[in-house]
């Protein structure tokens, strides 16, 4: 029996005393609401105002919305954006699921190494990915020229919507992969064995049993990736801008930059529109995941999942995965490494003519840049840890309790991702400036930790919630009848069983927090610099070498943390 059905409220039941669980649940919900709404409210308010928040005497109206919808640019970009986001979501999720199943559950040789390499794109900022792909796959890119010279055919055009979707998919696929593989790792083999005895081969089992059971993480990652696709800025800006393909994000960014004064009203209205779209998506997602009892696989009878034997397909699939890794991870990463140690990079001249350590030296010669590295590590460690725990709490309250406002939490948990990073940053900036008690932490790294943590709440939620859905409700029931209250049950049973998902969440958060820059723009101050923004500053000045060097540092740091964490916790993320 699903927990939801048993949480039927009885109007006449008086709750006699304030129980600990109510305190915790209301506390968590209240805090979540504050954190999520803090950046959203100023933005919402400014969407109705005819002038920026800092100017007094403004009037409230819907004129910003009118302007947004009547802007000729707006209509042009909506089609582009939807096409891009849809294509990206389809490709990412497909790739992510396939990889999760193959690398996580099938006997592909070298699974652990391959699984590690699949994650490489997510260690890089989208800005860096775009620029690494330009190095390799742009019309003057190394690989493009190689193909042109050897095969005498114009291979592809990176500067098209499908081209950009491929880049974005490669960048975002690790999210779907990580979400799905922690689910795949806890499948109950009895369910699959049942299919085997009925005569199903491995492929059939995968399609009819394993995949449908992965519906929660598939849906979560699809919604999250689609949302990111709607608001990602760097890929459209670098790849689409020059050829005139504009997306919603770059459209907004240009309206922000290009007016006489930044158009807060328009940007606010656009943020609200995005919010509504994502709300609809989440409603849809919830509808599809409604009866989560269908996805329960971790029951009181615990067993180990077994590995699918692929037979003849084994080496073919291995080769395919290797090819994908070569094109999507290794080559761009190679481009990045090259650029990090060269003054310039051009296919017209051999790279070793320009070898230099200068890019690295520049970074370490200025205290502000060194600080940005240490700050980012701190923020990513603390932010990742705290956010993971907090989101675990949110998940427990949203999906495993009888809290009255559970459903609201589902929405609150994804809203932070609906707003482009810059807008989140502006929102938090306003929150810190207007709410005086928060004043002292503004301009410190704690403000950034808070803003980043909130921005990536949905990422953590998507890593943890589906896993929660797979733990049978009878484990909760058994604990309750044995005498444990809601909090003890959550703590001693559910949180422990969630460990693989908590670890995935921490890793994902660390990776995202260390490279974040969009929401940092308005919050950074001397002393609280972060790597993502430093990279952007270098980039704007035309210094691509230090950008590559810094990005390489980021990747190395992240890999070290991921590896160390895995060894310490003995929890595998993917298999």
């Amino acid at each position, binding site marked *: 029996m699903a927990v939801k059905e048993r949480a039927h409220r009885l109007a006449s039941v008086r709750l006699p005393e304030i*129980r600990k669980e109510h305190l915790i649940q209301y506390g968590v919900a209240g805090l979540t609401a504050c954190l999520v709404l803090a950046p959203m409210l100023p933005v919402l308010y400014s969407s109705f105002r005819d002038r920026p928040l800092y100017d007094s005497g403004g009037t409230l109206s819907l004129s910003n919305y009118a302007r947004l919808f009547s802007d000729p640019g707006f209509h042009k970009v909506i089609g582009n954006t939807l096409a891009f986001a849809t294509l990206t979501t389809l490709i990412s999720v497909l790739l992510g699921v396939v990889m999760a199943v193959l690398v996580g559950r099938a006997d592909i040789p070298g699974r652990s190494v391959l699984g590690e390499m699949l994650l490489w794109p997510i260690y890089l900022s989208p800005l860096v990915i775009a620029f690494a792909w330009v190095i390799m796959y742009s019309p003057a890119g190394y690989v493009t020229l190689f193909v042109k010279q050897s095969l005498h055919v114009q291979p592809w055009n990176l500067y098209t919507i499908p081209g950009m979707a491929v880049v974005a998919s490669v960048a975002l696929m690790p999210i779907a992969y990580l979400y799905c593989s922690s689910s795949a790792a806890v499948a109950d083999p009895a369910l699959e064995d049942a299919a085997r005895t009925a005569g199903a081969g491995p492929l059939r089992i995968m399609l009819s049993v394993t995949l449908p059971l992965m519906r929660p993480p598939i849906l979560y990652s699809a919604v999250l990736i689609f949302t990111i696709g709607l608001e990602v800025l760097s890929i459209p800006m670098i790849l689409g801008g020059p050829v005139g393909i504009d997306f919603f994000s770059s459209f907004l960014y240009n309206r922000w930059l290009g007016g006489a004064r930044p158009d807060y009203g328009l940007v606010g209205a656009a943020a609200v529109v995005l919010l509504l779209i994502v709300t609809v998506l989440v409603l849809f997602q919830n509808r599809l995941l409604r009866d989560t009892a269908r996805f329960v696989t971790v029951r*009181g009878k615990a067993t*180990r999942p077994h590995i699918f034997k692929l037979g003849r397909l084994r080496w073919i699939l291995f080769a395919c995965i290797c090819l994908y890794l070569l094109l999507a991870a290794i080559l761009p990463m190679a481009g990045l490494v090259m650029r990090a140690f060269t003054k310039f990079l051009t296919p017209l001249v051999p790279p070793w003519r320009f070898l230099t350590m200068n890019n690295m030296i520049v970074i370490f010669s200025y205290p502000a840049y060194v600080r940005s590295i240490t700050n980012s590590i701190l923020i990513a460690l603390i932010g990742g840890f705290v956010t993971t725990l907090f989101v675990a709490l949110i998940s427990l309250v949203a999906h495993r309790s009888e809290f009255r406002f559970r459903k609201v939490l589902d929405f609150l948990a994804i809203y932070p991702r609906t707003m482009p990073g810059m807008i989140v940053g502006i929102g938090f900036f306003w929150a810190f400036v207007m709410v005086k008690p928060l004043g002292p932490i503004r301009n410190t790294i704690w403000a950034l930790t808070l803003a980043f943590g909130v921005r990536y709440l949905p990422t953590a939620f998507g890593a943890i919630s589906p896993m929660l859905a797979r733990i049978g409700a009878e484990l909760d*029931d058994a604990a*309750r009848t044995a005498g444990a209250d809601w909090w003890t049950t959550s703590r001693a049973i559910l949180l422990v069983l969630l460990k693989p998902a908590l670890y995935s969440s921490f890793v994902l958060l660390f990776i995202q927090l260390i490279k974040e820059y969009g929401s940092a723009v308005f919050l950074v101050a001397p002393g609280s610099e972060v790597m993502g923004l430093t990279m952007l500053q270098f980039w704007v000045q035309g210094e691509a070498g230090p950008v590559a060097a810094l990005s390489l540092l980021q990747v190395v740091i992240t890999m070290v943390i991921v590896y160390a964490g895995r060894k310490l916790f003995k929890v595998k993320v993917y298999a």
Partner: protein
Amino acid sequence: MPEIVVKDLSKRFGNVVAVNHISFTVRDGEFLTLLGPSGCGKTTTLFAIAGLDHPDTGLIRVGESTFFDSSTGQFVVPEKRNCGMVFQSYALWPHMNVYENLAFPLRLRKVSKKARDERIAEILNLVELELYKDRYPHQLSGGQQQRVALGRALVYSPTVLLLDEPLSNLDAKLRERARSWLKRIQSRLGITSIYVTHDQTEALVLSDRIAVMREGRICQVGSPQDIYASPAEPFVADFIGTSNFLRGHMAGAGEDGTILVDLDAAKASIRINTTKSFAQGAPLLVSIRPEKVRVVDRSRDAALPAGNWLEAEVVDGIYVGACYRHRLRVDRTTLRAETEAELTTKRVWVSIPDDACAVFEADPAQDSAGETPI
């Protein structure tokens, strides 16, 4: 050991009434089974007693404590009810070994380590799993997991024991052994227990009393013998064991506590003992257990003793080890009968003993048990 009182309990899920104002009492130390087909509301009732479900109306009281009372709005949370519960899927916590699964409730009750160890050893002894203390659930067989689940339910000496179809996942042989073992433990401990199952054999073997449920109501409560021999409704007669059903009409009441029933499907009448009274001509349903039907070879022209004898022809028979089960055609209807030896002739006499029938008023529109199915 306290008694469990349930009064006027009801619960609906949306438009579906799962539990429809039922009341029953489980006496001190008694083993009561809630028996019925799936969807009859038995599990909902059990969960309501455990506190895992919020009923709509009713009263649930265990001993002196009121767990739930809709008239005052009182509701005690499950963790405070001190019930022991065994789940259908055992619900052993996979990240804890056997010892830790058992220790969990004791830790919650702040039992000292020494006392905990003693108690766990005692329980493991009881369920015969002393050597498995350090094993994890996935390292145990189904039967062993089930015993751990029972042990965990008992380790903290609960006031009552609730069992939700705990044997349904075991194979037949194991289930039989588990049944008798479970019964032994329960009577040894003398703990008031409610058992939920759809398996009527289980119910008959284990229970002190059975409450047969259907579509949210209780059809009959009684000892296994009562329920078997004197079903209160055609449904009960059909659900417990097997029954033959004959439709007929009230032909008349006799002086000696018998009535005459004109059978619809056979041109005959039978006389049966009953304390019930019916209006003349009222449509009736007579049920008779196959093992009570006597069959005699018609080819031998022996004199038949007094009784309800009908002409019949053997349709088929199957051997089930303990006896032969035959289907016999009686005019336009079919009866099932059990015989020790195989019937060799086709034409037989069938006797309906007058003291082994249950008779019910038949609802002409609705057919709760119907004609004897093939």
